[in-house]
């Protein structure tokens, strides 16, 4: 049919012109060929996207808890000189991210573990800073997290031999993480050095085992991950 406003032939089963929105009438004199072409050109009625209300509600609750605790902390700061609200904010965001990481279908297991590691590490650092900054987070907790992540990846690689090369990329990343922790432990403010060094030794042994038990594909795996 022809839109009376635009003067252009419109192929549609609907009663309006897509160019101007004007009502158009289907004419009986429209040829069968034209009607057939209009049917061929039709699109589906798209399903409406439902908003992710659960995710939004969890995020909103996280923000509410953070803002309210910050507000109360501000009002009571004269009586108690402790920034406990920062601790609450870090903790609720840690919980929020943990839920998000483990319910999301987006990430690979290695990526999930690493994201979890970084959020756990930031929570430990915040607690450390708020409780007097004795660097226990760097000297004790984070190195053990690093050992934990390397162990989990090793177990996964051993159990799922089909995806061995997939995990080796993440294990190599875990090795570099322990190198960073080792370098941090060399600074004088880190008094307890042995956990970082143990984590480093553990990572070296793991990577050694990795190469020893790997197939030829490992080289290719590393090449694609570090492609330059």
């Amino acid at each position, binding site marked *: 049919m022809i839109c009376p406003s635009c003067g252009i032939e*419109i192929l549609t089963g609907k009663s309006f012109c897509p160019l101007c929105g004007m009502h158009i009438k289907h004419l009986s004199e429209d040829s069968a060929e034209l009607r057939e072409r209009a049917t061929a050109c039709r699109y589906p009625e798209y399903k409406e996207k439902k908003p992710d209300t659960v995710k939004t509600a969890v995020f909103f609750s996280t923000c509410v808890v953070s803002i309210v605790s910050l507000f109360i902390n501000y009002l009571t700061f004269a009586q108690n000189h402790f920034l406990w609200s920062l601790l609450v904010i870090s903790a609720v965001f840690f919980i929020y991210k943990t839920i998000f990481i483990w319910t999301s279908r*987006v990430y690979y297991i290695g990526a999930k573990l690493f994201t979890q590691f970084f959020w756990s590490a930031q929570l430990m650092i915040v607690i450390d800073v708020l409780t007097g900054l004795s660097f226990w987070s760097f000297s004790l907790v984070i190195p053990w997290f690093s050992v934990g992540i390397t162990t989990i990846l090793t177990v996964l690689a051993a159990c799922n031999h089909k995806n061995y090369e997939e995990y080796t990329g993440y294990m190599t990343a875990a090795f570099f993480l322990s190198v960073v922790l080792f370098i941090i432990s060399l600074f004088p403010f880190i008094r307890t050095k042995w956990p970082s060094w143990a984590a480093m030794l553990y990572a070296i042994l793991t990577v050694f085992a990795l190469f020893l038990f790997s197939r030829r594909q490992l080289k290719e795996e590393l090449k694609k991950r570090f492609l*330059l």
Partner: protein
Amino acid sequence: MITWYSIDTAGKLFPSVSSNNNSSFFRIAAVLKEPINQDIFQETIDRVRPRFSFFFVRLRRGTFWNYLEENNEPFLVQQETDCPCTASQFGRHDSHLIRFLYFGNRLSIELFHSITDGRGAIEFMKAVLFTYSVIAAERNCDKVLPVPEEKIVNIQSTPVIDDYENSFLRFAKINKKGSKLEIRKFPPASYHIEGTPAAQKCVGVITGLISSEQLNRYAKSLGTTVTGYLASLLIYSIYSARIKFSTEKKPVVVSVPVNLRRRFPSVTFRNFFAVVNISFSFSTIESENSAPLFDTILESVSQQLEHLTRKENLQREIDKNIFFDKNRIGRWVPLRIKHLFVRLGFNLFGEVRRTITLSNMGEIDLPSGTAQLVDHGEALLYPSLKCPLNCAVITVNDSMSISFTKAIEETDVIRSFFLLLKQQTNLQLQVYSNISREKV
């Protein structure tokens, strides 16, 4: 062993800039004369998959670059239920960079821009349509099967390195050590089409069908090409619908992707295109200029197109692309940081400096046995926040389809374009759309 591919120079941009508002998925579709048979379509995909295995991949993150990894998950054809060119969530096991959709008579393939460009997609679509017609003929027990011609990729052959080579690297003339690049002054920000964001963020499509041969003849009579004519008409439509009623001084910039395979002998299915920006500023037109406005635009656009698509200028575009790829410092920047800079650069120097993209993908040249199954083709470009209106052109069987994709509710520019096209050429024009609400 899982096969992997590095992403070509142009394709590296898209993983960084893609989002819900800029999906980087484009669509090539064919509207057949008969409804699509799901079983035949699925069998078609299963048959062509080994030959085009480099398209059946997933996007993975490396330390310094993204890369493509063979995806062994099944690729199932799906009935179309979502809006065209929707974004994908990468990193999921089932996230594909290529989608096979059907609805009624429409067979659509949506591709993420990192794996191929328009020309590569057309070659793939040709192989799919040909195989579909062969299987349909086999099932109908037809005595005469469509004959494969040279213009169709033989799906019995095996992929070769040339199929997925990064042709930018082959044809770049940049000195690897010195990497000298002519630094040109960045053009000013362009005029932007603004409007009410589309409901549900659904991409609206309005397609016009016109005779390719007659439009070609008309464009030639004006001393230009179809692309030159359509780009001029687009600029004039934007002027008629928007700029005429405002005090806007910024130039209208039409980005035209150019297939580099025509000037540089490459058979790659990966990205090998350059983008040339055709600019027209209405503030520079003198009021006493007696020539009609459209003629002035047409002359300027034709000259710019002719100049910018010369081999030496396209060579410069290749070198410019490769400069950022080969930059020694940039290569060692971790991917996460690279993403931030690429996104920033794209918003500052890419999106801000173009009004609309016009991609003439050319012709889907099919063997006669297959061509008779197809009514017409469609090509859809994804819109973005800054460029909420884009246009793609494709031709099958003398039927040229000019499809606008929009992320805004307003249709004034599109209406103006089709009215002018009808008025000027006086050719038969048929328009259809996916818009389902009356308020446009």
